[in-house]
C-alpha cells in the first residue's frame, strides 16, 4: 500500500474530472413533456454541446394520408397537435377548400373561429400551466387546467368528444352549433378572465418563478426568422407575425385584436405572450359571438362535397347513392397544388397538398410549427445550464404528435 503522504503530494489526483460529461436525457424523461431525446456534453452544469433528436412519435402521418380519402385525414389531423385539435381540423378543411375553390357560409366561418379560439385558449393554458408545474408550482397547473376542462365541456357539447373531435368537414362542419352554444361560451368568458388574473397573482411575483424564467433561454429575432420559428415563440422574440393578422383567413379581418410582441425572447416573454394571447382570443370570441348569425346554413350547398342529411340517406335513393359515393370513392378534388396556412396553437400550421384529381391525396405535407420551434431550441439551450432545459423546453411547447407526425 502506498504511503499516505505520497497521495497528498500528487496534486493531479485531487482535482475533479475535467473532461465534459456526456449525458442522455429522454426519450422518456419525467421532467420534460414530450418524447424527445437530448444528447448533451456537460462542463459542470453548463451545456457545451447539444443534439436534439426528435422522431420518437413518428407514425407516418403524411404517408397515411396518401392511402385514404380526403375526408379520412380529419382524424389524423386531430392527432397532430392534440392539445388544440380543432385548429388542425379547420386548417385541413381550409386547405382542401382552397383547392376546391369554395368558401363555407358565413355562419360556419364564425363557428370555426369561435371553436378555434376556444381551442387556442385551452392550448395556451395547458402550456403555461405545464411550464409552471415543471418548475415545481403544482397549484397553478391544476388551476389553469380547470379552464381547459371548462373549454372541453363546451367542445364536448358541440362535437361529442372532449379531445379528438374530428369535427371539421370539407365544406363545413359535422353539425350546426347547438342551441345553447352562445350562452355557454358567454358564461365561460368571465371565468377565463378570472383565471388569467389569478395566474398573474400566483406566479408573476414568485421569486423562484421569475429567476428561472427571466433571461433564460433567449432567442434573438434574427435567429427566430432564420430558423423558421413562428407563433408565440417568434412573437416573444419580437417577430410581429401572426397569420390571423398578416394573412387573414376565415373572418379574422373583421375583428379588432392585438398581437402581443415580446422583447427579450426569453422564457418569461414566451409565458407572457401566451397569457396575453388568451385575453386576445377572448376578445375575438366576444366579437364573433356578437357578429355570428343565429341561423343559416353551416355547410356549402354542393352534394358533390357535403354528405347528405342522414334522414335522406335512409329514405331516398339519391341520397343513399351520394352518401355511398362520398364514403367509398371520396370527393374528387381537382388536380393542383396549394399551400394553405393558418395560425395553430404553436404557430404557422401549413398544409402543402398535391392532388392528382382523384379521391385520394397525392401528397400531404404538413408544416408543423413545433418542428422549427424545436430546431431553434438548441440555440436557446446551448451555453445555459442543464436545469434551464426544463423551463425552456416547456415554454417552446413541443407537441410530439405534431412535431414528429
Amino acid at each position: 500500500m502506498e504511503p499516505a503522504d505520497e497521495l497528498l503530494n500528487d496534486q493531479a489526483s485531487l482535482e475533479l474530472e475535467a473532461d465534459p460529461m456526456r449525458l442522455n436525457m429522454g426519450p422518456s424523461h419525467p421532467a420534460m413533456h414530450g418524447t424527445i431525446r437530448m444528447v448533451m456534453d456537460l462542463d459542470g452544469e453548463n451545456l457545451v454541446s447539444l443534439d436534439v433528436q426528435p422522431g420518437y412519435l413518428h407514425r407516418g402521418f403524411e404517408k397515411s394520408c396518401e392511402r385514404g380519402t380526403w375526408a379520412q385525414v380529419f382524424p389524423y389531423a386531430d392527432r397532430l397537435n392534440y392539445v388544440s385539435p380543432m385548429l388542425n381540423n379547420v386548417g385541413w378543411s381550409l386547405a382542401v377548400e382552397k383547392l376546391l375553390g369554395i368558401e363555407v357560409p358565413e355562419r360556419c366561418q364564425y363557428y370555426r373561429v369561435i371553436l378555434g379560439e376556444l381551442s387556442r385558449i385551452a392550448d395556451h393554458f395547458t402550456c403555461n400551466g405545464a411550464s409552471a408545474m415543471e418548475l415545481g408550482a403544482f397549484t397553478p397547473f391544476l388551476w389553469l387546467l380547470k379552464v381547459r376542462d371548462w373549454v372541453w365541456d363546451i367542445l364536448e357539447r358541440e362535437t361529442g368528444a372532449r379531445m379528438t373531435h374530428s369535427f371539421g368537414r370539407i365544406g363545413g362542419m359535422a353539425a350546426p352549433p347547438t342551441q345553447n352554444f352562445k350562452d355557454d361560451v358567454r358564461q365561460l368568458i368571465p371565468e377565463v378572465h378570472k383565471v388569467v388574473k389569478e395566474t398573474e397573482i400566483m406566479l408573476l411575483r414568485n421569486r423562484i418563478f421569475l429567476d428561472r424564467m427571466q433571461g433564460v433561454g433567449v432567442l434573438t429575432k434574427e435567429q427566430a426568422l432564420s430558423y423558421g420559428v413562428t407563433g408565440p415563440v417568434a412573437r416573444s422574440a419580437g417577430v410581429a407575425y401572426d397569420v390571423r393578422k398578416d394573412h387573414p383567413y376565415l373572418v379574422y379581418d373583421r375583428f379588432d385584436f392585438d398581437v402581443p410582441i415580446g422583447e427579450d425572447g426569453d422564457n418569461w416573454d414566451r409565458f407572457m405572450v401566451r397569457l396575453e394571447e388568451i385575453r386576445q382570443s377572448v376578445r375575438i370570441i366576444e366579437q364573433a359571438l356578437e357578429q355570428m348569425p343565429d341561423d343559416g346554413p353551416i355547410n356549402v350547398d354542393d352534394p358533390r362535397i357535403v354528405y347528405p342529411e342522414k334522414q335522406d340517406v335512409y329514405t331516398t335513393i339519391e341520397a343513399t347513392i351520394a352518401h355511398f359515393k362520398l364514403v367509398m370513392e371520396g370527393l374528387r378534388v381537382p388536380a393542383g397544388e396549394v399551400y394553405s396556412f393558418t395560425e395553430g396553437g404553436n404557430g404557422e400550421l401549413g398544409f402543402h397538398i398535391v392532388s392528382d384529381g382523384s379521391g385520394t391525396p397525392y401528397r400531404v405535407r404538413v408544416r408543423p410549427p413545433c418542428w422549427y420551434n424545436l430546431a431553434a431550441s438548441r440555440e436557446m439551450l446551448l451555453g445555459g445550464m442543464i436545469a434551464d432545459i426544463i423551463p425552456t423546453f416547456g415554454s417552446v411547447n413541443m407537441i410530439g404528435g405534431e412535431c414528429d407526425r
Partner: protein
Amino acid sequence: MSQAVVDRLGTQFGERILGTSDAFGDHEVQVAPKDWVEVAQFMRDDAELRMDHFIDLTAIDYPERESARFDVTLTTRSSHTNARIRVRTHVKDGEEPNTLSGVWLGANWAEREVWDMFGIKFQGHPDMRRILMYEEFIGHPLRKDYPIDKTQPLVPYREVTDIDKLPPFGIEEGQPFARIDWEARLAGRDHQVSPSIGVQQGQRRTLSDSEAAQQIQARIDARMAQEAEASEPTEEGSGE
C-alpha cells in the same frame, strides 16, 4: 404570396427562371438545381426582397416522371414586406442539390427530413443524418414505391400460437391497405379501379402478397404442421 417577388426574380435571373405560376394564389418560380442556392441567397440578401423568414422545405415524389423524379419546394417569407414565394426545383433520383442550411438555419432540419423521407441528399449539409426514422431503417418511407404496409421490426415478432387471427385482418380478409397500389401502378398494371375489382382482375396486390402476411402465413403453416404432428400419436393410440 406576392407577384412582386416573382417579377423581381424574373428581372434578376432572366432565363434561369424556368417557369412561374400563380395557381390558387400561391406564387411560385421554378429554377434549376444548380441555381438553387444562388436564388435563395439573392432572395434573402436583396434589399428589395429581404425574404428573411424561412417557412418550409419539402419534396414531392413523381416516380412516373421521366425527366426528374422529385420536386423540391421551398417556401419563404419576408418579415418586412410580408411577401411570400415558393421556389421549386426538379431533382433527379440520386442527384444532390446544394444545401440551403447556410442561407437559413431552419433548412438544416428540413433537409434532414427530406433525406430521411425521400432519400434526397443535400451537398454540403453539415449533418446529414436521419431525423425521424432510426439509423437502422432501410429505405425512404415517403417514396411512392415504399409499400405502406411494409414493416421493419428491430426485434423479431412475437410468436403467437393460441390465437387464429392476427389484427387487423386474417390473411384473406379485409381490403388492401392502400387505395393506390404504387408497385402495380409503376409496373403498368393498376388502372385505378375500385380495390375489390382490382383484386379480382389481378391488378392489385392482396394483403397475402405482402411480406408481413407471408410471415404470418408461414407461422400458421408451421403451427398447423406442429398440431398435425402432435395429434398423430393420439390417433394411433385410439386406433389401437
